[in-house]
C-alpha cells in the first residue's frame, strides 16, 4: 500500500443539539492479512490499517484497533452526540507508515 489513500466520510452536515448522529468512515486499503502465500510459497507480509480515531473539536470520541480480521477497504459505522458546531477529524494509521486524515464540518443548532 502507498503511504496514504482515499477515504470517505458520510455524516449529516446539520444536527440538533444533543442528537445522536451516525458516521460512516471508509478507507481504501487492501488490509493484507500476512497469512497469505504466493504460488511459490513466499509469505505476503502484513500490511493493514491498525488504528482509526475520530476527534470532535479536538476531543477523541471514538477509537478502534484493527487486526487482519477486518476486511479490505475497512468501513466502520459508529455514533456520536452532536454537542456543538465544529470539525470532526478522522485519522487512519497503519503498517509501513500509512496515514490518512479526513475531516467533516457539522452545524449544531
Amino acid at each position, binding site marked *: 500500500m502507498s503511504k496514504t489513500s482515499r477515504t470517505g466520510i458520510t455524516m449529516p452536515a446539520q444536527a440538533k443539539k444533543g442528537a*445522536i*448522529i451516525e458516521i460512516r468512515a471508509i478507507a481504501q486499503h487492501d488490509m493484507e*492479512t500476512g*497469512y*497469505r*502465500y*504466493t*504460488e511459490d510459497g513466499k509469505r*505476503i507480509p502484513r500490511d493493514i490499517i491498525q488504528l482509526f480515531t475520530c476527534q*470532535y473539536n479536538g*476531543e*477523541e*470520541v*471514538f*477509537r*478502534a*484497533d*484493527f*487486526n*487482519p*480480521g*477486518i*476486511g*479490505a477497504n*475497512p*468501513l*466502520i*459505522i*459508529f*455514533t*456520536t*452526540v452532536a*454537542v456543538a458546531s465544529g470539525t470532526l477529524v478522522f485519522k487512519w494509521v497503519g503498517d509501513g507508515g500509512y496515514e490518512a486524515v479526513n475531516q467533516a464540518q457539522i452545524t449544531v443548532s
Partner: protein
Amino acid sequence: MYLSALGLLGLSSWMAPSLTMAKQPEAMEAIAKIVGSNTIRDSRVNLVIPPLVESGNLVVLKLSIESPMTANDYVKAVHVISEANPSPNMFTAYFTPRSGRAELTTRVRLADSQRVWAIAQMSDGSFYRGYADTLVTLSACTEMI
C-alpha cells in the same frame, strides 16, 4: 448449481477441521486475557452476523451493547474474538459517553464456519459477552493467490 454448492461446502469442510479445532482454545485464551480475574456475564451484548455467508472475505458485523452511555455508566470497549481465524483478535472499539449509543457496524473476514464473540468492558469494570454463529462456505485470510 446444487452440485457446485455441495462442492464448495465439501472443500471448506475438508480444509476446516484442524483449523477450527486448533484455534478455539486460542480464542478462549484471548478472552481470558481481556477479562482477567473478573466474572463475565452473558447479557447486554448483541452481535449480529449473517447465519450463512457465501464468502468470508467481507461479512457485515453489527454490534450493539445495552448501556445508558452516561458519564458514569458507559461501555468503555468492545473486543471481537474469532474462534477460527488465524488470529483470534479481530478488532477492538473504544466508546466514550459522547458516543451516545454503544453501537457499530463493520465488515470482517471469516476464515471458516465459526462462533464469533463480543466482549464488552463497562466503565465500572464489569464484563458482558455475546456471540453469533455462522456458516461460511468460502473462507478468507489464508487462500493462495
